[in-house]
């Protein structure tokens, strides 16, 4: 589903070039559950942003279902994000003035889904995430776990096939963190391709395939494929 070929991402900081990604080659199949770990500044978030089309590779190619998405213009990239990719952030990023239901419905609004269908899908989504009685509450009236549930509900309301989570449990305590992870894993069981960036060893270890990054390079790739784990060192 995802194929990166020699992807570089270079940031220009002052007169210095910082290589956030160095010649990353990566293939991720449909329905995989991948964790992406590594020290701070290793480039894992940048990789996630490139995968989510929030950032563009400086060099190299990114093929999504065989289509070179790096060649797409901004409008088409936005469309791809809207319809195929869901994001979950550490900081939840719920719009504070919108109710839970409105936050969840936001991607549908952007995708110009008709209001009736929008309401139906939002209600179903709230129900599925146990937030039905919270639909009219503002984000600051929700607990941390509820907020992240709302954010995941929002990320998946358009039924994307790729879900990208950046430290999804980073702002949560242990118990609610586990709860959120279970929800993400249920979504993966439902067929979604799940990529989680995390510092949390325990969370990272739950993924079927575990990538490690350091200094912009992929340095570990364990348990490739959906089947039982099989160790495999990258070349």
């Amino acid at each position, binding site marked *: 589903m995802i194929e990166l070929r020699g992807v570089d991402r270079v940031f220009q900081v002052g007169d210095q070039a910082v290589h956030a990604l160095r010649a990353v080659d990566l293939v991720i199949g449909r329905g995989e559950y991948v964790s992406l770990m590594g020290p701070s500044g290793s480039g894992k978030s940048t990789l996630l*942003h490139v995968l*989510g089309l*929030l*950032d563009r590779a400086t060099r190299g190619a990114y093929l999504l279902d065989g289509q070179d998405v790096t060649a797409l213009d*901004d*409008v088409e990239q*936005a*469309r*791809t*994000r*809207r*319809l195929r*990719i869901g*994001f979950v*952030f550490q*900081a939840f*990023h719920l*719009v*504070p*003035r*919108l109710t839970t239901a409105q936050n969840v419905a*936001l*991607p549908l*609004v*952007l*995708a*110009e889904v008709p209001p009736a269908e929008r309401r139906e899908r939002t209600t179903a989504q709230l129900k599925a995430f146990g937030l039905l009685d919270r639909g009219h509450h503002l984000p600051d009236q929700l607990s941390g776990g509820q907020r992240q549930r709302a954010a995941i509900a*929002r990320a998946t309301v358009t039924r994307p096939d790729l879900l990208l989570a950046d430290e999804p449990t980073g702002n949560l305590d242990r118990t609610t963190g586990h709860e959120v992870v279970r929800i993400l894993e249920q979504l993966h069981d439902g067929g979604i391709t799940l990529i989680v960036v995390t510092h949390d060893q325990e969370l990272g270890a739950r993924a079927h395939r575990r990538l490690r990054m350091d200094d912009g390079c992929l340095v570990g790739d364990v348990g490739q494929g959906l089947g039982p784990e099989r160790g495999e060192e990258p070349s």
Partner: protein
Amino acid sequence: MRLVDRVGFCVQSLRSQPTRTLLIALAMAIGTAGVVVLTWLGEAARHYVVGQFDALGTNLVIVLPGRSETTGSAPPLLGETSRDLTLDDALAVKRSPAVRRLAPVVVGGAVVAFGNRSRETTVLGSTAELLPVRRLTLGMGRFLPEDNAAGGAVCVLGATVARELFGAQHPIGEFVSVGDRRYRVSGILASGGMSLGTDLDEMVVLPVVAAQALFDSPGLFRIIIEATSKDAVPLAVADVQRILSERHEGEYDVTVITQDALSSTFDGILRALTLAVAGIAAISLVVAGILVMNVMVVAVTQRRAEIGLLMALGAEAVTVRRLFLGEALLLSVGGGCAGLLLGEATSRVLPHFAPVLRPGVPWWAAAAAVSVAVGCGLVFGTAPAARAARLDPVTALARR
């Protein structure tokens, strides 16, 4: 994103900051109301002045003795003349085919008395034709006799003068003394109010010959001529110049003013003044526009995370731009409409206290004020909206 959803999104965003929204809209409203009210006042003043000219009569040509060769003073304030304008001049001019009617006018002050009451008034000497030429109406009795040259010993009183001298008594047929002569009252002018600063109610009208005798002067104050039609006005002017030059030994020593020229001059001056004042008021609209811009710049900075999120959720740059431009527009349009209502209300309420003002804002002023408000929103909303649309989603999301 659908239009209705965009509007809803903008409204919700504005409502989440009610104080800020109201203050900015208020600034916009005051600016708009300023433009509307000042334009209305200017227009009302223009209508008042033009109306005053029209009240004088139509197609009028006014001849004054003397001719000013220099500019610097307004036409009615001309200096001394070497040669009088006489009644014979007036009679000569009357022979022009372009002249329908004509009234020579002599003006002076005298004491008018009846019994033991007396008062100082303005005395106007003229002919029977003054009535139609100046569009005066009689309250009772008759005006001066047609055979004015003979100049019977009659007079016509202004409404105020008549009331003050006679009280409840019937004045027609009574004798009043003007100066040292006695005149029979033949008529009373209807109360006509002011006309170009002259209170006709405060006057006494005598036959022109009688007035000339009273003031012991053969010179006329002016000749008021009514041309046969609007098109005949230039012809009448030419005839007046020709006839009077002939009569004054080839010297053109009178000043001829057409009511049209006077009225259109004032019309033009007041129109220009109105536009100038409205333009000055529009500066406050621009200031309000800058406030809108300021607020939008702050909003873009404060809502970076939200903008990043919208982009991550698949909003195109153009959607983000429209959302922020929409907010600026809503602020301007809302404020502009509120200001228009405020201005319209002012223009309806004020005339109750100052009846000379014509109520109702001219439609073009209302349209201009609102379009300037909307234009301000567009112009000053564009830069912040473009800035929002240019944000890099990754950095926008990274900052909390």
